[in-house]
């Protein structure tokens, strides 16, 4: 139900998929590239429309653009699985994120000189379709299914276009992510069976569980499944080791899409499904989650990041570290915390995608990712340096960038939850400032190292060209726009969170306040 003559959500999924199929059917290269522009632009346009016209949409159960497509399974064994699309305040920011990062990754891939470019674009388009589907799905099975649709191309892209250790990395990422996905699938099935809902669609699940909350033990067990299943997918310490390895080896556009968007699937699942439906489970596990995230993701991984000498590893580990803040926000179990996590997810997605993009652009000029072999690039490439420093500032969480609002909100929520954890989390910001600024300094400033001087003599580095600038600009502009006007996302987010988190409060902890009393 939208005031457009078509369903923008379905088109955002179908157009990239259709372009991918057309390329697979053997379109010539020139036309493949032209169509790929359409395939990447369409979801972004739909996302922008949703962003700015969300408030004007008719909303049913808090969802705008709600539509239902039958898969013929509705009546079979009373399973109730159908392709139900819609956006609420929680999924809207992520839908926007997926559209923008997808466009940037797509544009960057089109200008890249990857071998077998057609297959590369095709896989990226499939991934893009999956990503749009993940955040537009109201039905839990399709939510999972689209995630896998986006995940499979990642494995293949790491395996074919990855770096030196691609084979090992592809295998490791596959096994870890399969394990995580299976655990969360069982958790979702458990939720469906135990609630006794007639269908997998989230609206029905919410209504049924609000009327008849699950028992405490059941909630604890299901939340554990979802927490660790989604946790593996989001690289919760100590199950994070696939992430730096995978991102280090993945080709840039795949890393942008995975680290930027797909990884948010797990956090999104926790905020949209697990927290509101399993308040007791969330309260029961919040201490474990908070401890793992604060000590493991923020502190330990923070120190590991400090020790990295490879630019892509630094970015990979820093993204694992920032997921720690997101987990801390979730552990708070409050509207404030969850809202902060959603803002941080969007901000982190944009900034980490920008960093991976720029890292590859740096590699094209230095021919190495080793920080010790770089230096002084800023003299030759001032624009690239400016972009990278801005992305680093965003990633650290300086005011003016979207990340600031996400982190600030999480810290405020965390202060109400635990003072001690807040101190740890804020000291993490110092760590991230150290490694972020040091990486920027090593790459761009200071005298050129011998190794770099030799490379620069052979291939004189040129500044960012327009084909690299445009995708970078899209991401940076979005970061600044949200940084200066967070309200564009937070109004609807706030409304949805209040509606969703208020429903089960009679059974669970109070929304907006401290999560757990005592203990």
């Amino acid at each position, binding site marked *: 139900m939208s005031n457009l003559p078509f369903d923008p959500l379905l088109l955002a999924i179908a157009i990239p998929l259709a372009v991918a199929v057309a390329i697979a059917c053997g379109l010539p290269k020139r036309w493949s590239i032209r169509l790929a522009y359409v395939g990447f632009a369409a979801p972004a346009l739909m996302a922008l429309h949703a962003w700015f016209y969300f408030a004007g949409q008719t909303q049913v159960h808090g969802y705008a653009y709600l539509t239902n497509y039958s898969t013929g399974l509705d009546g079979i064994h009373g399973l109730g699985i159908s392709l139900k699309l819609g956006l609420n305040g929680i999924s809207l920011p992520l839908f926007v994120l997926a559209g923008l990062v997808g466009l940037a990754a797509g544009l960057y891939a089109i200008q890249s000189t990857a071998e077998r470019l057609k297959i590369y674009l095709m896989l990226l388009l499939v991934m893009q379709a999956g990503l749009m589907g993940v955040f537009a799905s109201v039905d839990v099975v399709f939510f999972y299914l689209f995630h896998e649709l986006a995940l499979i191309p990642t494995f293949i892209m790491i395996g074919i276009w990855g770096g030196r250790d691609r084979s090992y990395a592809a295998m490791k990422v596959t096994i870890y992510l399969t394990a995580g996905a*299976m655990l969360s699938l069982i958790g979702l*099935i458990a939720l469906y*069976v135990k609630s006794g809902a007639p269908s997998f669609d989230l609206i029905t699940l919410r209504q049924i569980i609000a009327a008849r909350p699950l028992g405490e033990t059941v909630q604890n067990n299901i939340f554990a499944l979802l927490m660790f299943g989604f946790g593996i997918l989001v690289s919760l310490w100590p199950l994070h080791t696939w992430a730096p390895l995978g991102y280090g080896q993945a080709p840039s556009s795949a890393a942008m899409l995975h680290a930027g968007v797909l990884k948010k699937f797990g956090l999104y699942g926790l905020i949209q499904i697990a927290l509101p439906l399993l308040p007791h489970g969330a309260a029961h596990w919040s201490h474990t989650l908070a401890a793992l995230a604060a000590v493991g993701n923020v502190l330990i991984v923070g120190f590991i990041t400090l020790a990295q000498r490879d630019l892509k590893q630094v970015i990979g580990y820093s993204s694992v570290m920032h997921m720690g803040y997101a987990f801390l926000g979730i552990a708070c179990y409050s509207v404030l915390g969850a809202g902060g996590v959603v803002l941080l997810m969007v901000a982190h997605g944009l900034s980490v995608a920008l960093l991976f993009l720029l890292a590859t652009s740096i590699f094209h000029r230095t021919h190495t990712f080793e920080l010790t072999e770089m230096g002084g690039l800023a003299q030759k490439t001032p624009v690239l340096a400016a972009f990278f420093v801005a992305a680093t500032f965003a990633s650290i969480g300086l005011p003016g960038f979207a990340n600031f609002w996400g982190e600030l909100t999480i810290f405020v929520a965390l202060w109400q939850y635990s003072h001690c954890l807040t101190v740890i989390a804020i000291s993490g910001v110092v760590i991230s400032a150290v490694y972020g600024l040091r990486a920027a300094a090593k790459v761009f400033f200071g005298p050129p190292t011998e190794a770099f001087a030799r490379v620069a003599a052979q291939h004189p580095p040129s500044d960012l060209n327009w084909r690299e600038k445009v995708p970078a600009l899209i991401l940076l502009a979005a970061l600044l726009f949200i940084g200066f006007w967070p309200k564009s996302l937070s109004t609807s987010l706030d409304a949805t969170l209040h509606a969703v988190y208020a429903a089960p409060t009679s059974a669970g902890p109070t929304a907006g306040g401290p999560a757990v009393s005592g203990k």
Partner: protein
Amino acid sequence: MDIASLQTLAANNDWLAIMPELLLGCLALALLVLEIILPAKLHSRLPAVALLGVLALLVFQLLGFTAGFAEQESFNGLLVHSREGQVMRVFFLLAALLVGVISTISLAKQKLPHTEFYHILLVVTAAMMLLVQSNHFVMLFVALETVTIGLYILVSYFRSRPLTLEAGLKYLIMGALSSSILLFGIVLLYGVAGNPELPGHTASAMNLDSLHAFLAANRHNFLASIGIVLVLSGVAFKIAAFPFQIWVPDVYQGAPTPVTAFLAVASKGAGFLVLLVLARTFSPYAWLLAPVLTLMAGATLLFGSLGALTQHNVKRLMGLSGVSHAGFLLMGVVAAGTQSMAIGAIYFYLFAYLLASFAVFGVMALVAGPDDADQEISHYAGLAKDSPFLALVLAIGLGSLAGIPPLAGFMGKLFIFIAAFKAGLYGLLAVAIVGVVISSYYYFSWIRAAFFSSGTSSDGEATARPARTPVSFTAGLVLSLLAFGTVLLGLYQGVLGQWLNTR
């Protein structure tokens, strides 16, 4: 004559109820006759005759020509034409058709008579169709033996190859052993049920309905429980469930590729249908069935996945991964004890497994050289570059077997998991997750060989591998249909779901 009047007439004639099986048998005999009377140069057309015949029967079955007999008994209760039976008739005809297509590829590489192969294939198929409809131990045993004896011949069909002969011998010994165990179990049950001192004793204990009534009256008879375990063991051999799976790798490797596919899909499907029927008959002994089947399912899942992990030969890998699929299906059988939706899940899984397995076996037959037992994963190196079509079909097939959405195999696993969860089988589910994760490793390493390795070793020399068979029009069409069906069933389950529901 219209269908309605045919059905009225048929209601009084049991023979019409098994018309598909009879026609299949006639077709098999006609093949032999045709080979004698036709000139030698026309003999190469005979496989096409067999395949077209099976295709025609499949169409008749899909149009519902025997639907008038649904839920009726015939031959004094020897057979029950259950709705499941109708579904499985289609399953077996489809399997026979696909095995036939793969055989045309594999047999072309051997200097062996062709017609007899199709003759036995059709006879075995007919026997399988009767097997799943039997409601009487005598019928069940005779049909099962017809299947098994036919398979003894088919397994050792490439008779000049030592590995094939070894496979044939192993299958013969193991098959004979399992048949005798099954027979012993049947005899025990028959003997106990005929004991006039027990309540509810019956002289017709061979009939599954009577046996069920007897078991319901004696829920803790010691001899009966031994009989039940022995009968289950006999069936466990056929579906290759732990601890009766040990013959699988050698037999799967030695048997010709199409026969391996037939064993993996049709024989397993028949075994599971028999198991479902028997589980229903033995339901008063749920106290015994549930733990035995649960243990069997968990061990089968783990053994299959772990065993497949170290295989380099793709036929052995398919065999052992098939064992883990049997574990998933067994999980469904356990769940079917309390959840009726599990039965639908098992059918869906079987059909998804059929489509995906035959896609993979079809590619295997095309990639294999003249030595059918020698099919290594390394032979697949560079397949994506040489033949993107085969690589794509292989990836879809293996992806579906590994349970990757949005392919049919994922939906099959999802339904089984939901059923198992509803039945409260949490321990089995945990084992199943481990199985899925392990299976993603070995399926992925096969896909990796096809897509990511170039086919040359580190010093630049091409690794030795047999020449690939060019894809004929029929093979290409069948493989694309299988791949398309796998994707379609993953995205839109209504096609099969509604059809299963109306049966």
